[in-house]
């Protein structure tokens, strides 16, 4: 019952938003009845939103710890592989309605943008909650397209599936953000997503080349810049696709011997990049 009530509430809220959007966007509007995102968010509103999100985040962290406990307790890789976690109890899915409601309760705040970002990555993976995606993307474009914090959302956009919603958000950020950091991150994520499927590979490559030309100095993550990052991605697009001869690897084996990938020609080879961390 609780779920149904929450959904009904969200639908109502979203309907109001959608009704307002066209009025708000029109230049000839004289009276704006309501604003979905107050232009000025007070410090008190920001703090309240931050505190509420931190609290929810803490509960989410606890839920994840509990959910993943069996994996932690497994003693061997075999045991770990045999464990099947119940997808119905996935905290990512369980917290979706709450995150969605949170974002409606705290419009315009930086915390709201973080919550919307989490909704995108979780709803992208969960068929039942896909309906949230379009609404969340519309809201971000309406309320946050000029925010520099949008960078944190689009930076890892290529880890979400290339759904029409995800692509339209990245395109909007790339084309309409006034910040180079947001533009560069959005072009990169878009290039990665389009580059990963054969039909759109050429466009993906073009976008990554554009990042290399125009946004190479934009910081990506930790110490790396997009210039460094994109060089590897372009190599992958050009040389590591299905149908291409694998680049040669010459290196040291674990016994200290010299090893060469091409020495395995004549055999079917499973090349496995691994680490036992």
């Amino acid at each position, binding site marked *: 019952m609780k779920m149904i009530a929450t959904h009904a509430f969200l639908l109502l809220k979203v309907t109001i938003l959608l009704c307002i959007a066209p009025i708000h966007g029109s230049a000839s509007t004289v009276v704006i009845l309501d604003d979905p995102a107050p232009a000025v968010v007070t410090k008190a509103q920001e703090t309240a939103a931050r505190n509420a999100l931190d609290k929810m985040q803490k509960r989410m962290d606890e839920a994840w710890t509990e959910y993943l406990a069996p994996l932690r307790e497994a003693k061997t890789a*075999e045991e770990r592989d045999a464990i099947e976690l119940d997808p119905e109890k996935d905290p990512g899915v369980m917290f979706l309605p709450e995150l969605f409601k949170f974002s409606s309760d705290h419009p315009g705040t930086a915390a709201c943008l973080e919550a919307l970002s989490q909704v995108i990555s979780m709803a992208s993976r969960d068929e039942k909650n896909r309906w949230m995606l379009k609404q969340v993307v519309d809201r971000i474009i309406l309320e946050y397209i000029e925010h520099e914090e949008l960078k944190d959302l689009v930076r890892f956009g290529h880890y979400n599936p290339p759904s029409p919603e995800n692509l339209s958000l990245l395109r909007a950020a790339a084309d309409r953000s006034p910040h180079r950091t947001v533009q560069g991150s959005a072009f990169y994520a878009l290039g990665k997503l389009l580059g990963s499927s054969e039909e759109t590979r050429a466009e993906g490559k073009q976008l990554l080349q554009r990042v290399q030309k125009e946004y190479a100095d934009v910081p990506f993550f930790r110490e790396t810049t997009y210039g460094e990052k994109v060089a*590897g991605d372009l190599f992958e697009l050009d040389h590591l696709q*299905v149908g291409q001869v694998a680049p040669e690897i010459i290196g040291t084996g*674990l016994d200290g011997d010299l090893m060469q990938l091409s020495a395995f020609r004549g055999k079917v080879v*499973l090349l496995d990049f691994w*680490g036992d961390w």
Partner: protein
Amino acid sequence: MYPHERSLVKKHSADQFAIVGVNSENTIEAAREAVKKNKLTWKNFYDGGGANPTSGPIATRWNVSGWPTTYLLDENGVIRYKDVRGETLDAALETLIDQWKAAREAEAKL
């Protein structure tokens, strides 16, 4: 992943199939230990990058950003599948082994 890989090696022991690992442990000693612990019988490149083990030269060149990442190559060294796991991997491997056998039969007829 290890048990599945070990089972593939066993299942295809009579076929021309090999697993080649690229390991990104902190040190080569740790890599040897991991091989022993997980009972891996196949050859491995050592690609650890020290303090930042995932930034070794091979993984960097191959633009690897998640571990494990796998490539399945045919007998000519051509990339045929990327990151296939579980039953999809079994079927993909089966396909390539069948192609290998068909190629030998075709050669024998010449």
